[in-house]
């Protein structure tokens, strides 16, 4: 069938050892090759494929997907801690092939999915939504990179001489290739501080802006097996790792990185602002003449720890409500917990800030003649 495996622009996605939780890929039905497609679908649905897995596969916007598994081994239901160790995980290389591999070719654990037209962004989102912890090898042409995920957060990326967000941007700009979990040790230091959503959003915007200038990269089938993963090596010099400086790995020497490739030697396709540090309130909008009316500190449970000013009780209730809604909004759009919330009215401004210990501090100011 022409729509099956083996077409151009293919990414192999190893779902085996990482991430997808107990609701995901929990089917043994897909392991058999029964003649009745409906029965297989039904079995798969009953055992959970219509849940998270189907949603996540659907989420990948892959028009056609073929899934194979080794004789129904139910590995994906295990917690990450119970997953097979690195030795067992040293699976056979996935080979993009016009025909699905037989069961005998599959590694001894979990599921492999071959996603035609899969998008690396979507694959990363699947792992992120699954709160995966692990390292993924991305191979595209002659380039290879590593994406380190901790509980679904992209914490580190490296390719060629790049690391951190620049490396993530470089890797995520690759348009075809292979994506698989690997045994590389998770980076001890976080070098990527943006959420996956934010990172992808930035990249999408950068991609939009560069769409006219960047020639479309011809798709190709990667037929060679993946090379053995590079041996695990520390991601930071010991002294830097001890210091715990997140920026230390950004300038990591190329010698500690995977072999450079022509693609990796290119500068990352990012606008300059991508590299800038976030500078809160650096936008020149501080021209307000305000008078503090009230200040409160709220506990996680919304209790008033301290308060000052008029109508503290009512103000605290409003703050607690707004903060809760803001938190829910942040979760809904997968941006996490807010750092601050500014409620700007015609005559007052409420500023709520989330503190590291979970408490909320809020202030109510009168705003006079702040806007035209």
């Amino acid at each position, binding site marked *: 069938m022409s729509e099956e495996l083996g077409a151009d622009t293919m990414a192999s996605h190893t779902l085996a050892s990482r991430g997808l939780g107990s609701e995901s890929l929990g089917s043994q039905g897909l392991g058999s090759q029964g003649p009745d*497609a409906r029965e297989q679908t039904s079995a798969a649905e009953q055992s959970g494929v219509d849940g998270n897995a189907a949603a996540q596969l659907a989420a990948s916007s892959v028009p056609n997907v073929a899934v194979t598994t080794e004789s129904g081994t139910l590995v994906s239901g295990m917690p990450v801690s119970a997953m097979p160790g690195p030795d067992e995980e040293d699976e056979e290389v996935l080979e993009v092939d016009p025909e699905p591999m037989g069961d005998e070719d599959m590694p001894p654990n979990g599921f492999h999915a071959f996603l035609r037209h899969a998008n690396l962004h979507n694959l990363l989102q699947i792992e992120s939504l699954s709160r995966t912890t692990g390292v993924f090898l991305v191979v595209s042409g002659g380039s290879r990179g590593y994406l380190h995920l901790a509980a679904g957060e992209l914490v580190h990326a490296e390719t060629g001489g790049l690391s951190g967000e620049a490396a993530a941007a470089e890797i995520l700009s690759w348009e075809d290739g292979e994506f698989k979990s690997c045994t590389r040790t998770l980076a001890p230091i976080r070098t990527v501080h943006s959420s996956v959503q934010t990172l992808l959003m930035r990249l999408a915007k950068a991609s939009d802006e560069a769409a006219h200038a960047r020639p479309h990269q011809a798709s190709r089938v990667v037929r060679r097996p993946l090379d053995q993963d590079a041996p695990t090596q520390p991601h930071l010099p010991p002294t830097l790792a001890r210091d715990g400086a997140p920026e230390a790995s950004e300038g990591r020497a190329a010698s500690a990185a995977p072999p450079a490739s022509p693609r990796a030697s290119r500068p990352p396709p990012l606008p300059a602002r991508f590299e800038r540090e976030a500078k809160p309130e650096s936008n020149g909008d501080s021209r307000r003449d305000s008078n503090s009316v009230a200040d409160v500190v709220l506990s996680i449970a919304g209790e008033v720890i301290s308060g000052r000013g008029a109508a503290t009780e009512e103000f605290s209730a409003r703050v607690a409500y707004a903060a809760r809604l803001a938190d829910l909004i942040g979760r809904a759009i997968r941006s996490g917990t807010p750092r601050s919330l500014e409620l700007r009215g015609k005559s007052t401004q409420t500023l709520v800030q989330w503190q590291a210990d979970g408490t909320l501090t809020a202030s109510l100011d009168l705003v006079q003649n702040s806007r035209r």
Partner: protein
Amino acid sequence: MITVDVLSSLKDIDGVYGSFVVDATGALILRDLPGVIDNGALREAGPRIARLWGAFPEDDPADYVLLEFASHQVFIKKFEAGSLCIFVPPSVNRPALRMAANFVGRWLDKQLAALPEVAGPASEPVPEPAGSTASGKKKTYIFRGQRYEV
């Protein structure tokens, strides 16, 4: 007919990632966002955004809300018929953004007011973006030569 074109004008402000609009009940009306944020997420956030205005004092009409996250912000502008939500970097030129949001808000108010009173959404159903993480459309999967629809 309300089109998404009006939202694209917000991208005149340097750094704006995209935006979406919800009506007064929080229902999604328009979107101009990369596919990494799907409509499901926006529909989940919409009612909360609509309720957020309830946190303002009654005697102080709401103007806008700014939600700051780790690496981006969501600027939410209230207009008569709903809320305009704009994803921006922290470094955005906020006065310019506010002016652009005012403009778009006024435009949306006019467009929504001009629509006849009908049950249902004010505009066409918001299409799911390409590459979205959750689509309501059926997906076809092929497993060993068999076609499955989810």
